């Protein structure tokens, strides 16, 4: 029997949360093992495509000098409201976005996560890949004291385990931090294609002046068949990330095939020209945990902390997730460091993690938008009604019909109430307001 494998801390999952935690722990001088089930960090990770640098800077202040493999800075962003045959664009471009490093970059996770994990390794973390954690190891009092992997002689021990396993949080559930899976109306399914195009083509088609400009667009309405969800289109260096996401419940209820919804979106007359001649280099799918603030798992137990998607730390409204994950991972790491100093790994001590999170945007935002999922769930027509309305209103507004402008404006307002009663609109707006205010 080989010697018992002992570490100061174990981090399960080398995504943004886990790597951030590992960096903090390694920098704090602890012997930390970061376990990843993929062939390399990032192999299992898949997202729409925008990373925010503020959270990365908090974890790794010199990240820019370490040459992160970003795709393009986001120098123009906004929303497209798409009807079946048109689009209303609300885009924002500013000199502010030109500064380097930018606030946000498009990225591809396979490369980014590999790089990020390498930074943890360079700071002293031990990265173990191709190894799946299958269970927790507990002591006689039920406290978590390690994890069991799927390798021979695969038990590892540590006084603290940070679980950042991602949206399929089987370990979190096995550890008793969450009772059961959440229903499909609290989880979104996103599918994406990465479409290769020469950078020159991308720049011409999207009116970008070079590699230091990029676009991030969230698209509503017809892109998701008018169902509650979003589509997105982000420019990468030599490709376009394009995808659609809907609550899994919508796919279940309507028996929709995600790849057909995406293909339909790609064929939309507004979208198609942007993709012409491109080659699909990769297709993939991922769940997004839209648990909401009130349904998050417990974030701490004896010997355990949970961070990132595993804890539902996603702000779907603002397509944020990796930054919440990095911040939570960092705070989990800091809590684990403090626990080592105090030699106290009890749930009571570790709850400091949650308190720290409450004071950051992570839980503040999640709390604020706690009712957004409910809002979309109870207002499924929201997308189609208002997005189509915006398109038709724009059509009226921009077309000359020989009508006095005042009449045209009245018509536009009337059009809305033909689609939805006055009280219906009022109720929708109130709900939306509640959803936004929390």
């Amino acid at each position, binding site marked *: 029997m080989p010697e018992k494998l002992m570490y100061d801390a174990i981090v399960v999952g080398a995504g943004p949360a886990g790597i951030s935690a590992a960096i903090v722990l390694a920098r704090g001088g602890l012997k930390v093992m970061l376990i990843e089930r*993929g062939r390399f960090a990032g192999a299992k990770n*898949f997202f729409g495509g925008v990373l925010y640098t503020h959270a990365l800077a908090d974890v790794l202040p010199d990240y820019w000098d370490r040459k992160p493999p970003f795709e393009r800075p986001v120098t123009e962003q906004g929303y497209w409201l798409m009807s079946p045959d048109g689009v209303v664009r609300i885009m924002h471009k500013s000199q502010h976005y030109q500064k380097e490093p930018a606030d946000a970059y498009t990225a591809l*996770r396979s490369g980014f996560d590999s790089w990020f994990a390498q930074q943890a390794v360079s700071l002293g973390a031990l990265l173990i890949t191709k190894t799946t954690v299958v269970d927790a190891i507990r002591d006689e009092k039920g406290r978590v004291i390690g994890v069991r992997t799927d390798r021979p002689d695969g038990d590892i021990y540590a006084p603290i385990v940070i679980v950042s396993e991602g949206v399929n949080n089987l370990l979190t559930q096995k550890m008793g931090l969450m009772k059961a899976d959440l229903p499909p109306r609290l989880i979104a399914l996103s599918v994406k294609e990465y479409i290769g195009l020469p950078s020159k083509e991308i720049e011409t088609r999207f009116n970008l002046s070079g590699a230091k400009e990029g676009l991030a667009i969230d698209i509503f309405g017809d892109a998701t068949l008018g169902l509650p969800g979003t589509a997105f289109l982000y420019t990468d260096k030599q490709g376009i990330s394009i995808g659609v996401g809907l609550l899994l419940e919508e796919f*279940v209820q309507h028996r*929709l095939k995600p*790849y057909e*919804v995406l293909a339909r979106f790609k064929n939309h007359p507004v979208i198609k020209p942007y993709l012409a001649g491109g080659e*699909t280099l990769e297709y993939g*799918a*991922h769940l997004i945990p839209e648990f909401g603030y009130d349904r998050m798992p417990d974030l701490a137990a004896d010997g355990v902390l949970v961070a990132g998607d595993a804890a539902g730390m996603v702000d779907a409204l603002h397509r944020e997730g990796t930054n919440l994950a990095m911040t939570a991972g960092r705070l989990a790491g800091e809590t684990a460091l403090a626990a080592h100093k105090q030699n106290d790994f009890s749930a009571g001590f570790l709850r400091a993690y949650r308190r720290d999170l409450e004071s950051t945007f992570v839980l503040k935002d999640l709390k604020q938008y706690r009712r957004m999922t409910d809002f979309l769930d109870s207002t499924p027509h929201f997308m189609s009604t208002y997005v189509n309305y915006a398109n038709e209103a724009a059509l009226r507004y921009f077309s000359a019909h020989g009508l006095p402008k005042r009449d045209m404006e009245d018509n536009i307002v009337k059009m809305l109430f033909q689609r939805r009663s006055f009280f219906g609109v009022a109720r929708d707006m109130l709900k939306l307001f509640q959803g936004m205010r929390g």
Partner: protein
Amino acid sequence: MSDKAHTPLSSEIRATLPNVNVDDLLASIKYYVDEDYAHLWIKDQAVCLQCKDKPCMAFCPVAVYRVDKQGHTMVGYQACVECGSCRVGCPYHNIGWTLPRGGNGVAYKFG
């Protein structure tokens, strides 16, 4: 709240959905197939036989699930991208779902 059935999708909208051969998309994905271990399985075929809608045939983004002539659900775990949709999406929780053994399964080239 939302255990209610949604308003069905209008047939006009449904008609705008193109037919897609998902296998052509799968060709872009890199897999390391574990021939010795299927990480997905049907817990009880009898449950599937009684399931009329079979939503898994639709929502699985890589069409892991197909039905044979006898109505049994076939599981093509080799194409799984481990998203977890079937784990939470099966209305009867009839799909056994584990992670592939470390190093196996999907390995995104771009992500």
